[in-house]
């Protein structure tokens, strides 16, 4: 295996287009573990850590652009992640433990597309868009189109994630990532990500995604539509979660059986919605 550290995008694209079997190394939190176990054995490992364009966060027209190489810790500490975007911050702080958060990056996390990880569901609920770069240039992928299957994204073979754009609006929305795991810092058995806003007693904005219950984060416009315009009463929450539950297709694994995950879905949604509603009523 060879290892390179390109210092420009041109140099990066050069490697990407000329080498067949490569992997891009971001924080390495998952990739290095997979290489250690022998699950992944690329011929070329391309470190992204010298590419300044992938670093940092900036706000442009009410959208925060988070560079792909931004660590979970940096996101957790970022107080410009407000309104709708606070959801991303809430999720980042719950990923694994601080040692992992110091290394792991948002770009790496979503490129890996593990449905039980925290960012896929959180970014889905936060209505993010993903800026990607490939040999034929840049394009933007809406988050709902980004995750395709277990560990599979809609990135074409030579594309890499450059940045994640998260709208700050609605500015009065709050984001909440509710994660259920048996031990602190574990992958979610089920997670619920939610951005919610209210005008008086009426829900003016809602976007829910459920993680770890299907091959990709589970989000239904119909479920959001039930909540929007409602008073977020128990019955409305129940109807929305019923829809999501019906669309879920969780697997059996060491973290829980499919039926257990299905048991959790409506309960966690209810908890997340009610908690957010309560919080909004104080603000």
């Amino acid at each position: 295996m060879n290892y390179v550290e390109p210092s420009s995008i041109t140099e990066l694209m050069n490697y990407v287009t000329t080498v067949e079997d490569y992997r891009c190394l971001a924080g390495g939190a998952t990739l290095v573990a997979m290489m250690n176990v022998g699950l992944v054995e690329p011929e070329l490992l391309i470190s992204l850590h010298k590419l300044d364009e992938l670093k940092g966060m900036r706000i442009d027209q009410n959208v925060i652009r988070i560079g792909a190489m931004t660590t979970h810790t940096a996101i957790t500490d970022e107080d410009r992640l407000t309104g709708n975007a606070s959801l991303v911050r809430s999720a980042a702080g719950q990923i694994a433990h601080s040692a992992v958060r110091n290394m792991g990056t948002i770009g790496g996390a979503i490129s890996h597309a593990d449905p039980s990880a925290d960012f896929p569901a959180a970014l889905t609920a936060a209505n993010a868009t993903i800026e990607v770069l490939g040999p034929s240039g840049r394009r933007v992928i809406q988050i709902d189109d980004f995750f395709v299957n277990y560990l599979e994204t809609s990135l074409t073979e030579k594309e890499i994630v450059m940045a994640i754009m998260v709208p700050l609006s609605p500015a009065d929305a709050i984001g909440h990532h509710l994660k259920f795991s048996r031990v602190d810092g574990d992958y979610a058995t089920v997670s619920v990500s939610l951005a919610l806003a209210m005008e008086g007693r009426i829900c003016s904005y809602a976007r829910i995604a459920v993680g770890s219950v299907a091959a990709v984060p589970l989000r239904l416009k119909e479920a959001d539509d039930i909540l929007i315009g409602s008073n977020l009463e128990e019955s409305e929450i129940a109807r929305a979660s019923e829809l999501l539950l019906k669309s879920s297709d969780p697997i059996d694994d060491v973290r829980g059986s499919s039926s257990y995950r299905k048991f959790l879905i409506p309960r966690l949604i209810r908890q997340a919605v009610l908690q957010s509603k309560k919080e909004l009523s104080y603000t």
Partner: protein
Amino acid sequence: MANDTDLTDYIGHSVPRANTLALLNGRGQFVDDISLPGMLHVCFVRSPYSHARILEIDKQDALQSPGVVAVVTGKELLAYCEPWRAELTHLPPMQTALQYAMPPERVCYQGEPVVAVVAESRALAEDAAELVEIDWEELANVASIEEAMQSEGPRVHPEMDTNLAWSMELEQGELDKQFSAADVIVEQEFYVDRQTGVTLEPRGIIANYNSADGQLLLHHSTQVPHIQRAVYSKQLGIKESKLRIICPDLGGGFGLKLHIYSDEISTAALSVMLNRPLKFIADRLESFLSDIHARGHIVKAKMALTEAGNITALQLEDVAGGGAYLIHPRTSTIEPLLVGVCTPLAYDIEHYKANVSLVYQNKVPTAQYRGVGMPVASLVMEGMMDAAARKMQIDKAEIRKVNLRADDAYPCKSVTGETLEGLSQHESLDRLLEMCAYPQLREEQQKLREQGIYRGIGLVTVVEGTSPSPALYAAGGAPISSRDACTLRLESDGSIACITSLTEQGQGAYAIINQIVADTIGVKMDEVDILMGDTKATPFGGGTWASRGTSIAGEAALLSANAMKEKILDAVSQLADAPAEQLYIKNGKVIEIETEKVVLTLEELGRITHYRTMEFPQGFDPELVVTNHYSQRDHMMLYANCAMCLTLDVDINTGQVKLDQIWVVEDCGKVINPMLVDEQIRGGVVQGIGSALFEECIYDEDAQLRNGTLADYLVPMAGEMPDIKIAHVETPTLVTELGAKGCGEAGIISICAAIMNGINDALEPLGDVSLTSQPFTPEKILKAIGKI
């Protein structure tokens, strides 16, 4: 006048551990930190099947791989390592199978090593290992305990008629009569899943054979260097005197590093074969597939009580899943044996019967792991107590008080024949109930229940077996020493060199010996320089296992320190022309009692002893070196006791258990270092939180381990640790001068049962719920209350 800086009063005080600074500074030295000139690395090809025949091994491609020095099969290694049969002859007969360093023909568990690849680096060895081609014939396997017990069906070892490795019956009293006369009968079945030890530092060994002098030097992560030396000597055919084992720093043992492991002994044999230093360090994946597993029980229990709650009889049947082999040299039988012996120990039970057995499975062998059988014994006993209390509507503290022996009932014998020399169960329980404010806990529980919060209170009173006599293992022919020794030597600068057979696995053995020697002689702790873990240098001894370090090796250190003090005073009395009885030692100075005058410093004594011997009177030449040993031969074990209470909340929407607070009152006899005892209790508690709530080795029906990574095998972390408040009652053992009993296992023995009882207590408003299957996972809890 004495001033504080002169004090060397260490015994009984929370003195910080001197040897931890190096570890904190990253300057510890573990086996993997050591590199020898010319050293090669070993990697093993392990069986992907739980039961299969090896038809053909093609190693040609592997041999061609870069950096490869040798590729060796089990057949080829046979000439360098004799196979062994684990057996203890003082117990009922064992059906034992021959185990090889690497099996030549047939593998019995997934992960069993079959081919060793030796290369210039671990990475190159791993690359080459992938090129070894093996033709397998898969055989029918035995996965679960239930399958193993079937009279028809596959056998783990085809030469045997059954999968039964061992069984034993213990019976005392008139069981049938008691059951037919009983006012109340309680029956429960307990299931305890397998788990493993997960030491921070994985197993490892560096073997360096030198054909020039026939010496084999092992740097080995083991708790028991002398015992390993005896076992390795026999299997490798190298005299013990030619075999030296050095234990550098150890990152956790928990019983896991007591046994003979195929990969480790193969590494030693390969070093002899190749006449080269070789290193093998298990990686985390190998650890899950090859470190001993533990527990794995199905226990049926039945208990008779009077109307007043007195237990009149107890009967149990335990089948433990032993895995593929009876692990050598201790065998896997002691786990079920201790379930049989220890289950009734805590209470005054007169009529008892236990049938305990061990079955073979095509899984990793199970063996001694922290608590050995006793966490299961207490799970059963304490589970039965709570089941009876629920059924009879008696308070859970009350039913225990009714059945505990009076604190002045000792010494006495348990129904299983164990001598209980002195316990303080009533005093400990009373202190515990006071410390946790038990009545208020019940009131609070009631309030919380009204708010829809499922608060549970778990209470247990247990007995912990510690410091075994040779009757436990050595009587059965195994080379397992129950003795420990300590050599002390006055050095030329007046410091004390202390060479102990005890070993440090992170528990604080070093600090305890340091305290005992310094306090007893009367010198500062940093004037005592400790050496441990080298068979060529230290006196012979058992090492670290079964909570025996402080009680046994500590006693040896005390005896030596007393003898050394006497020798020092004798020598000084010769120099000062004062009777030894008129002298004492304080902070490294020999002082005359009457005048409080310093007669001589130990520093000066060191100089005179080693350089200016002419200053001694003619005919007197002091030998300021002593060795004393101690072997606990009075009782099978020195029993300690522990009472624990905890509060927890069960979330019935998720099945999640949240531990709230834990209180412990422990009696391990004389406490040498309260801080270290508390650390032992806390460590045991946290490890047991893992057993109770998270840890299980999940196998599928083909006996393939499904969660053999730290991503999938859950262990408790800081977030899962509640506050643990600890208090002590001290009932010193009378068999030693030191008076200490062990304390390393009380935490894990108590906590599993306390958590189970707490969960069942929390769920009481939901009807007759009794959860008895460990680990107590959210799904099992929801199933028990009919939610899924």
